[in-house]
């Protein structure tokens, strides 16, 4: 897989494993411990995601975006990063986030509506979740430009969906990156749907990868359910970014097996057959088969992981749920380095109004009766 040799007009999908978990080409040069790590993060993310869905259904968590099905794309990419590379996420990033040292409890807090969940461990170069689609892409370019100005040696990985490629910010960001020649890797998780909008209504382009040609740098198409292929391609792109300070666009073809967010009902817009088809391509299963053949995966080991995941998830739920209520000052205190007078008095007003509250807000339920 030579990035320079990439042919823009008809990108072929890069695979290391076939859909049955069989090696296609050469054995990739990855240490067993790394393989085990990859499997762990994919598995842990799956479990943590499933738990979140339960919490949400039980009314213990708000709306969130499940990652089920995209674990290989996320973990394959994030494990290709170095610690001091920058990670610039969209909003469906549990797998990469966990692998990038963001404790699960943070993620749970965030989706329980608690801003404190946005705190990132101090020494990790991760940005917080970006909700407005594709808007984080130019930030990645700016970070990469900063790295370049500082002499390079690091790279930025930003991730986004297929839908994101329709936004102006995708275009402006990638075009800047091409002109500035910065060490940024643009990683598209093409899960084939943007909520209910299928890929073919999103763009008339055959692939996302070929869009890179418009910006004068390589675009690579990879099987996003093949964690080894994702890892390989991303690693090369990041390395090239670090060494030569140049950008790459990667399209990882995958599938969102769950709903868009917990507010979504995918049965409204996509067929059961399609879902079935992709459930069979489960990236965790596929990787497990490979690992099993290599003698790395065993039932015992799986039991260990189950237990470990369960414990960590329980801890995370406890930590997220047993947190003291936010202080009203939190709404204001991070607005500016120094709070303007006006904001201070708004803060005081809020505190006073909570302290002196007499009338509890009732739910708006003027069924039929409203004027």
């Amino acid at each position, binding site marked *: 897989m030579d990035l320079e040799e990439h042919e823009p007009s008809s990108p072929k999908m890069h695979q290391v494993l076939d859909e049955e978990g069989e090696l296609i080409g050469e054995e990739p040069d990855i240490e067993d411990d790394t393989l085990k790590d990859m499997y762990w993060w994919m598995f842990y993310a799956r479990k943590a995601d499933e738990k979140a869905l339960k919490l949400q259904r039980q009314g213990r968590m708000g709306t969130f975006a499940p990652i089920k099905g995209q674990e290989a794309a996320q973990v394959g990419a994030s494990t290709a990063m170095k610690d001091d590379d920058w990670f610039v996420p969209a909003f469906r990033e549990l797998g990469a986030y966990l692998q990038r040292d963001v404790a699960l409890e943070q993620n749970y807090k965030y989706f329980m509506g608690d801003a404190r969940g946005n705190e990132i461990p101090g020494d990790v170069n991760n940005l917080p*979740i970006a909700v*407005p689609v594709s808007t984080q892409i130019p930030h990645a370019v700016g970070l990469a430009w900063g790295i370049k100005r500082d002499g390079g040696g690091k790279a930025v990985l930003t991730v986004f969906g297929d839908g994101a490629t329709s936004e102006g910010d995708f275009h402006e960001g990638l075009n800047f990156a091409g002109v500035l020649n910065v060490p940024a890797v643009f990683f598209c998780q093409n899960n084939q749907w943007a909520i209910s909008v299928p890929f073919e209504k999103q763009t008339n382009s055959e692939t996302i990868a070929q869009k890179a040609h418009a910006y004068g740098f390589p675009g690579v198409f990879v099987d996003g359910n093949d964690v080894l292929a994702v890892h390989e391609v991303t690693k090369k792109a990041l390395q090239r970014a670090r060494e030569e300070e140049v950008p790459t666009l990667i399209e990882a073809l995958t599938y969102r097996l769950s709903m868009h967010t917990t507010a979504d009902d995918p049965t409204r817009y996509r067929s059961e057959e399609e879902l079935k088809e992709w459930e069979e391509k489960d990236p965790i299963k596929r990787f497990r088969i490979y690992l099993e053949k290599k003698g790395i995966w065993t039932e015992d080991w799986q039991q260990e992981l189950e237990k470990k995941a369960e414990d960590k998830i329980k801890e995370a739920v406890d930590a997220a749920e047993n947190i003291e209520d936010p202080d009203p000052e939190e709404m204001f205190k991070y607005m500016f380095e120094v709070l303007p007078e006006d904001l201070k008095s708004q803060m005081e007003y809020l505190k006073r109004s909570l302290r002196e509250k007499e009338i509890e*807000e009732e739910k708006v339920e003027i069924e039929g*009766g409203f004027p």
Partner: protein
Amino acid sequence: MSEMNIVDAVNDALHLEMEKDEDVMILGEDVGENEGVFRVTEGLLEKFGEERVRDTPLAESGIVGVSIGLGLYGMKPVAEIQFMGFMWPALDQLSSHASRYRNRSQGQLNVPMVLRAPYGGGVKALEHHSESFESVLAHIPGLKVVIPSTPKDAKGLMISSIRDPDPVVFLEPKKLYRAFKQDVPDGELVEEIGEARVVKEGEDITLVGWGAMVPKMVKAADHAAKENISVEVVDLRTIYPYDEETVHDSIRKTGRLLVVQEAHRTGGFASEIIARAADKELLSLKAPPKRSTGFDVPFPLYKMEDWAIPDVDRIVKKIRRLIEW
């Protein structure tokens, strides 16, 4: 008459106008197969087909820009921005073009588009899903800004918005989408754009608001009534054009003004209302015109959201303060 919530009512208006006028088209993210993330476009794709109801790529500036082109051609696009927080990328098209083509072309061209968006907080949404920046739209000359707070108004105003030959931004308070039902006349129903509605008559103080603040104002009025304060509640329904007459009539009657606004305080539309009242009705005012508003902070994640929005308690206290002033 049918019992409807706001979602039903907007949907009903869309059905009626699409039946009546072939040129009415629907476009936006997830408005087709999925029928809108709030189901406001339910049944439209099925009834009118993809020619007239179209899921678009994920691109808000594109949605508005393409709608402008459709409007210039003679279509009547009703475009959706999925949440108001995602309208920012479309502001350039709104302010540089939608609002200007009639003027720029010396009246030769016009853009008969409606831009719908759910707006406002209170539904435990994610970041960027609870924004209210209607004052920005009202500051753009050439746009009308309509904000219904009841099913009946939602239907009547949507019909008027579609028929309006000029661009209308139609903001739907999502907190109220399914909050209550109301009897709404079947078939044709027209509510004039630019007319406020006196929701409740009163003598001592005028409350002015719009969108999801309206039921809060009504509740606050009920509370105040227990303390023998008679509150008049005005639902603006349209912030541009602004119905100064109705508001100032009320101020002249009550002598007191409180504007309730969910949006950030500084530069919100409430300040415009107060500036006009202070200018033209200074002598009628028995107390300073005041605001109860959101704070000058981004709308917070949901654990703090109830704090971020004016509540009945705060409104009642401001009423008391103004009465006692």
